[in-house]
């Protein structure tokens, strides 16, 4: 299944370019914003600008991971190929593993130019976060995967009508994910919602490193634990919806 997607991207440069388009665009917008803040507000504003850029770049890891998995599934749906895939010996978990692998390749191709751009144009080096960056990225990617499993489950349940969620659902979680501001900036009644998301803990941890130079292991542990819980829940929902799709005969007609 990984070969199937590699073959697809190999023969389509617009698809390859599209992978990097949004991460580069986002980085450009927030990079110029940071530059503007630096020019007007001095070092304090520059620190805020740096956190904005860091937030943008890290959030792309979650966004692209989620979209990568969901779009890999949609490719099968658009080509009305699910019937062939699911009468092969490929197990559903193998399909999910392949989609995650494809998503990771897409992410690498998409985010690398944005990271380079932020360094070359805006002198922002994401790697100054240190080795803990690996843990931040891993948690955000895992969050992207379980959100994508939820989206795929909805597509299995509601068909192509739910496909727009593949692009929109994680953007909807951005306000609650503390990407650009701390959880404390949210109204008190919204904070529990925010703290139930692994991303909020990752971005609180990112700001702690950038502002104070400390690693907040408590936030990292919370992010990892929440990812385990959400991933388990998403897996159960996916397994359930896959079975329902087999009961309804949706695997043959889902793309129509």
């Amino acid at each position, binding site marked *: 299944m990984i070969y199937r997607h590699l073959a*697809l991207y190999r023969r389509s440069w617009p698809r390859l370019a599209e992978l990097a388009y949004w991460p580069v665009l986002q980085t450009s917008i927030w990079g110029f914003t940071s530059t503007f803040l630096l020019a007007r507000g001095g070092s304090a504003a520059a620190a805020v600008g740096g956190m904005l850029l860091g937030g943008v770049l890290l959030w792309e890891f979650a966004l692209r991971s989620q979209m990568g998995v969901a779009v890999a599934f949609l*490719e099968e749906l658009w080509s009305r*190929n699910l019937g*062939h*895939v*699911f009468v092969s010996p490929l197990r559903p978990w193998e399909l999910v593993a392949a989609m995650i692998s494809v998503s990771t390749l897409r992410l690498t191709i998409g985010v690398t130019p944005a990271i380079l751009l932020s360094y070359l144009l805006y002198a922002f080096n994401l790697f100054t976060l240190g080795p803990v960056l690996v843990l931040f990225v891993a948690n955000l990617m895992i969050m992207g995967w379980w959100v994508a499993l939820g989206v795929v489950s909805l597509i299995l349940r509601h068909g192509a009508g739910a496909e727009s969620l593949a692009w929109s659902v994680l953007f909807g979680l951005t306000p609650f994910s503390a990407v650009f501001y701390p959880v404390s900036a949210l109204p008190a009644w919204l904070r529990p919602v925010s703290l139930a998301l692994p991303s909020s803990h990752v971005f609180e941890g990112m700001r702690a490193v950038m502002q104070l130079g400390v690693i907040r292991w408590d936030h990292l542990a919370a992010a990892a634990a929440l990812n385990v819980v959400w991933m388990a829940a998403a897996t159960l929902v996916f397994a359930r919806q896959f079975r329902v799709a*087999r*009961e309804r005969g949706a695997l043959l007609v889902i793309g129509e």
Partner: protein
Amino acid sequence: MAMDAIRVAGLTKRYGETLAVDGVAFAVPMGATVGLLGGNGAGKTTTIAMLLGLLIPSAGSVHVLGHDMARDRFAALARMNFSSPYVALPHRLSVAENLRVYGHLYNVPELDGRIAALASELEIEALLDRPAGELSAGQKTRVALAKSLINRPDLLLLDEPTASLDPDSGDMMRSLLERYRAESGCTILLASHNMSEVERLCTHVLMMKKGRIVDRGSPDELLGRYGRETLEDVFLDIARNRGASLGVPA
């Protein structure tokens, strides 16, 4: 006693109030070619989908190549394959890439050689580098058949395998299926509206109507029972409820 390739008992599929398949029971011996005939909505595609594990039955059991499809379908799926004009192949991939994808999924050894051999047999060598989405309907049917033979299946489920083919290409496909069956001992279950195809290929026929098997037998037995010269006339007798007047259960 030889194992049946397919053994189905009490197979039922209900969608709400609609009974798509109603307590169907049949067995397909190893090496046989069986035709599944019936009008539109008779339940053929639903039955095939349940045999493939794509659809979970409301009741009944399906055993394929000795495996219970409710519990152990992946062991059977590795040894079977399927072709239908209603299920497409990724249209942006070339024909060769498509065959390679499915070769990998079925873990086919010496895949490049297998693809070359199938391309030669099905006369699709010139199509290998073309995107599947740019092929004519007849070319797509041949490529779909190549995909269905990629893993040298022990059981082949074919839903209208020669749909969209001109008479010459259709004849070539039927010859290929006959040759493949003779060489491999493969079992074939064939849903088709082409009665001459069924008469030529099938050793046994199951006639479906309104989700039930209403008659069965070899083509010669059915022709004799209905006093007809072609299976098409038998099909029409069943579709138009003329079997009862001939003393045949409808």
